[in-house]
């Protein structure tokens, strides 16, 4: 990465690496991070892991119970839904949607938020006024209703979900970045960079940004859990990805009608949402503890 690779090994240790070491020591958070990684691997390798085709319907196995219940079959370990599709396979494929949308929204929103926050916090003046008021206005809308409105306007679809969620999500990193930028721009090394002829762009991207990245990473991971829930909510309401694409929220919705007789149809995708969101939350708490000096003893 650097054009200045040291000629001999030196014990260069960045703040980031030290923080990561602290994170590893937190067993609960580290375990949760492993769970998140497992979910990601599951999503990536879905075609090799899934026991069945998630789209193959088989009406003979309609509402088949999970394997440990009476009438269960190893062919469908977690049972089958109302169209006789393998629930486990659909959960494995559904992880792709949740994680992809969660990651995509966070990447888009964080990128926009970083640029807007840096501009507002460093340039101040009218730029700050415009961006900050826009943030205030967007914060005034209830998130889900805003997203529902956008989805209704744009129609369902993967790209549209990402847009509908990123449309408001960027204000969260933006506020964090703006606040940190306001504090950092007054520091001596930023002034020193100015005194040596650094341009505004250089100061924002090279002097300020690397120094405020830790809280941004923490916020991004915390928010990813929220975004996954929001995507599930949209899919539950039928505004998410198009059926028959497997999505956890849509699967919960599918099982709603049979919840009293075939509880497994809704419950397992619900548990998947719970487990992934919980793991991300615990891991991000651990990240925050490790990265935020206010939480370190």
């Amino acid at each position, binding site marked *: 990465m*650097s*054009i*200045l*690779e*040291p*000629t*001999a090994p*030196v*014990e*260069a*240790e*960045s*703040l980031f690496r030290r923080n990561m070491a602290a994170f590893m020591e937190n067993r609960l958070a580290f375990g949760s991070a492993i769970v998140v990684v497992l979910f990601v691997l599951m999503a990536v390798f879905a075609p090799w892991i899934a026991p069945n085709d998630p789209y193959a319907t088989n009406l003979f196995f309609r509402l088949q119970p999970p394997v440990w219940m009476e009438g269960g079959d190893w062919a469908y370990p977690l049972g089958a839904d109302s169209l006789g599709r393998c629930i486990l396979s659909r959960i494995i494929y559904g992880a792709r949607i949740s994680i992809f949308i969660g990651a995509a929204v966070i990447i888009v929103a964080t990128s926009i938020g970083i640029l807007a926050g840096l501009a507002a916090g460093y340039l101040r003046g009218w730029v700050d006024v415009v961006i900050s008021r826009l943030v205030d206005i967007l914060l005034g809308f209830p998130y889900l209703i805003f997203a529902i409105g956008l989805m209704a306007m744009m129609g369902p679809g993967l790209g549209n979900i990402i847009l509908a969620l990123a449309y408001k999500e960027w204000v969260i990193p933006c506020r964090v970045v703006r606040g940190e930028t306001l504090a950092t721009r007054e*520091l*001596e*090394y930023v*002034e*020193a*960079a*100015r*005194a*040596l*002829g*650094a*341009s505004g762009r*250089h100061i924002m991207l*090279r*002097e300020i940004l*690397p*120094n405020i*990245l830790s809280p941004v990473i923490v916020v991004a991971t915390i928010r990813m859990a929220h975004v996954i829930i929001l995507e599930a909510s949209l899919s539950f309401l039928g505004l998410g990805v198009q059926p028959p694409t497997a999505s956890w929220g849509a699967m919960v919705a599918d099982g709603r009608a049979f919840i009293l007789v075939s509880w497994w149809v809704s419950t397992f995708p619900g548990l998947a949402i719970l487990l992934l969101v919980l793991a991300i939350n615990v891991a991000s708490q651990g990240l925050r503890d490790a990265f935020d000096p206010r939480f370190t003893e």
Partner: protein
Amino acid sequence: MSADILLEVRGLRTVFDTRAGQVCAVDGVDVTVNRGECLGIVGESGSGKSVTFASVMGLVRVPGRIEAGEIVFDGIDLRKLSAKKMQAMRGRDIAMTMQDALTALNPALTVGEQLAEMLAAHADDLPPGRMARRAAIRARAIEMLTRVGIPSAGERLGQYPHEFSGGMRQRIMIALALAAKPRLLIADEPTTALDVTIQAQVLELISALRAEFGMSVVLITHDLGVVAQHCDRVMVMYAGQVVEEGPTAQVIRQPRHPYTQGLLASIPRPARRGQPIRPIQGQVPELVNLPPQCRFLERCPLADDACRHPIDMRPAGPERRARCIRITTPDIEKGLSHDI
């Protein structure tokens, strides 16, 4: 005027608008820096020495602004330059090192990255081609670090600022400032955060590099000892004004202004062992709504009603000027020619 003048500041007035009123941090300051010379700026905290040179660098920001004066650097009126052109001059023609070396380096980037960016931005004699350019930048970064006295520079390029000691960081700051070979280096209290042995090394380094690069240096400090050893000329500032200026040896041997005399008298010296140190009584006046009179009046042992009007700089010997009406009065001269 003469071709020997590199920087000329005339009637600089920099104010800060605060709720308590307008603070005039720099009030009618004239500075002349000749080519190749080292000018010392001495004064207490709040005397306006840093703000004067922040104004020269175009680094004064809201709520501060330059109200009047002209700043001419090598024939260019810096106040008339666009922000972009001024930015291009900073670092390349005039570089400034900041007071606190411990916090003046970006903690998130390695020293090598910071030097490389400085070189990439300002050096225009780099070879074409990506790899050749990188190699040249790296070589020059090592050269700069070696020049400022950092051993095994090649290895230390990959280290972060927190892995260096205070003196080393100050050296890195100087290497950064000198990377583009500026014609004027403004060193704002380069030794304040360092211990005494390191102070001497850093100042020696600045002197050596000044001779080598043929640049001018402005050394901002509150340590008269530093000025005595390293500066050709000295300017003493008090409450936003220059109160005395002249060749260092003369000013220190025969200070004309009561404030300079007070400063010198308040330095502990072995020769005056057993005698009490004589600090200047009182405090620097607040710079809001100053009355039109000598600013040192409240603390001056010689003050009387004649001092209750604005005092101008006046000649005080060859190449010397001071802002005191007492300079020409012979008996004062006698009364003050004490043991300095």
